[in-house]
């Protein structure tokens, strides 16, 4: 569900699976643990292996954005598929998207 690559103050969380209401709590617990432990200056959410995300993912990102920014850090979202990017855009968070993926994930 989540792999962590720690490069000092820059942490990449490689998420995998579907991010929906059912899965959100587990992602939230895992991400909050990393944020509390490492206080990242930059937390990169890598969506390469996320096949699906609905607005529950927006709630998840917004919540983490709040705590990371409170500690002076920032979040970026990498490898978002067009479908995931479209959902993120509706929330006004599209400035967080870097290096989007051209193809839709097929999982």
């Amino acid at each position: 569900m989540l792999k962590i690559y720690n490069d000092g103050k820059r942490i990449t969380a490689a998420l995998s699976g579907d991010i929906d209401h059912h899965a959100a709590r587990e992602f939230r617990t895992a991400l909050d643990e990393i944020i509390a432990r490492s206080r990242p200056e930059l937390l990169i959410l890598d969506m390469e292996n996320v096949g699906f995300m609905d607005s529950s993912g927006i709630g998840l990102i917004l919540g983490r954005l709040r705590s990371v920014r409170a500690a002076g850090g920032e979040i970026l979202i990498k490898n978002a598929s067009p479908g995931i990017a479209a959902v993120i855009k509706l929330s006004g968070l599209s400035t967080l998207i870097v290096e989007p993926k051209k193809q839709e994930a097929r999982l």
Partner: protein
Amino acid sequence: MKKIPINECKVQFPALSRNEGLSRSAAAAFALQCDPTVEETAAIKTAVSEAVTNAIVHGYRDTNGIVELLMRLYSDNTIYIQIKDKGAGIADIKLAMEPMYTTAPADEERSGLGFTVMESFMDKVRVRSAEGKGTVVTMEKKLSGKKNDA
């Protein structure tokens, strides 16, 4: 002229969050016969996921019940999807459909974007609801793929 569906499928399941994935996979599977693009499939899955999650999170917040997903295909390649619950209902539909509006407690981190996503990804979204009786969300999307002339 009244449109007559050329195919129809109904899926019913208890309001458990684990069924959110099942419901959107069922909708994607039903849409396959229209030869949808990857983007169209993603749009249908996301819209269904939002409506079903609403039924589970809001409709059946204090009770248990059945969520019904009805899918129809018309000959002009329009997919019709209905998500029905017999739960709490929505007091003010217009307010509920406002972007970022949610009645869920803050600690649940609901974004309030469910209806916004549905309206953005589907051609038509209609909501009927009565407090204490339940909610019916109907959505339509015309797909670009091959025509399904019966």
